[in-house]
């Protein structure tokens, strides 16, 4: 399941529903990304741009590939778009598997994908102005681990 949410969501309600529907799962891994008040940049919010339709299509394709690759029972991505304030969740990923290694690895894999290969564009809005963000070299290295 992929959802692009244009307003604040409750990650716990989403995970709760995900767990209820993941029949037969023994292991649920989740990741919640929150907007951090980056000290040096005085970040006040993020703005997330997307390509409606295309962004969901591409993320969903990767979710289906991840389910096959790690033999998951299910996987979910919910990502905010538009303005997201400091402290708010910007992304949640959840994976359900029989055993924990697959659930952990798949969750990690999906986050690495979202950071550098999903059609999303992130702008930092801070006290000192705005700045579009490109993935860090660490993000690219993280992604390259799966090749």
């Amino acid at each position, binding site marked *: 399941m992929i959802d692009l949410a244009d307003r604040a969501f409750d990650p716990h309600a989403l995970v709760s529903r995900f767990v209820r529907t993941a029949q037969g799962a023994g292991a649920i891994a989740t990741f919640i990304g929150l907007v951090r008040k980056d000290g040096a940049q005085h970040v006040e919010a993020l703005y997330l*741009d997307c390509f409606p339709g295309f962004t969901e299509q591409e993320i969903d394709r990767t979710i289906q590939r991840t389910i096959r690759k790690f033999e998951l029972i299910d996987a979910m991505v919910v990502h905010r778009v538009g303005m997201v304030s400091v402290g708010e969740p910007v992304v949640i990923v959840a994976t359900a598997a029989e055993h924990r290694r697959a659930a952990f690895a798949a969750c990690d894999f999906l986050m690495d994908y979202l950071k550098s290969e999903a059609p999303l564009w992130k702008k930092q809005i801070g006290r000192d102005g705005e700045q579009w963000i490109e993935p860090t070299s660490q993000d690219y290295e993280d992604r390259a681990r799966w090749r």
Partner: protein
Amino acid sequence: MVTVLFFGPLADLMGRERTVALASDRETAGMILRRLEDENELFQSMLAKTRVKIAVNNQIVSAACVISDGDDVAILPPFSGG
């Protein structure tokens, strides 16, 4: 007519979309992009600093993809989500 779509930093400069007429029936995505660069120095200098991908009707294609009347051509700067 072709709709060219811009995202992220490119949308800040160009707006979300522009409608352009095809110059010929063999015009490629790359050729349309070059025409837009010729018309706008700021756009040109942004493209010089970054690597864009191109999607035609929601499928990623190469710059050599020939564009048809009615196509959507999306110019996608580097992704950064999460």
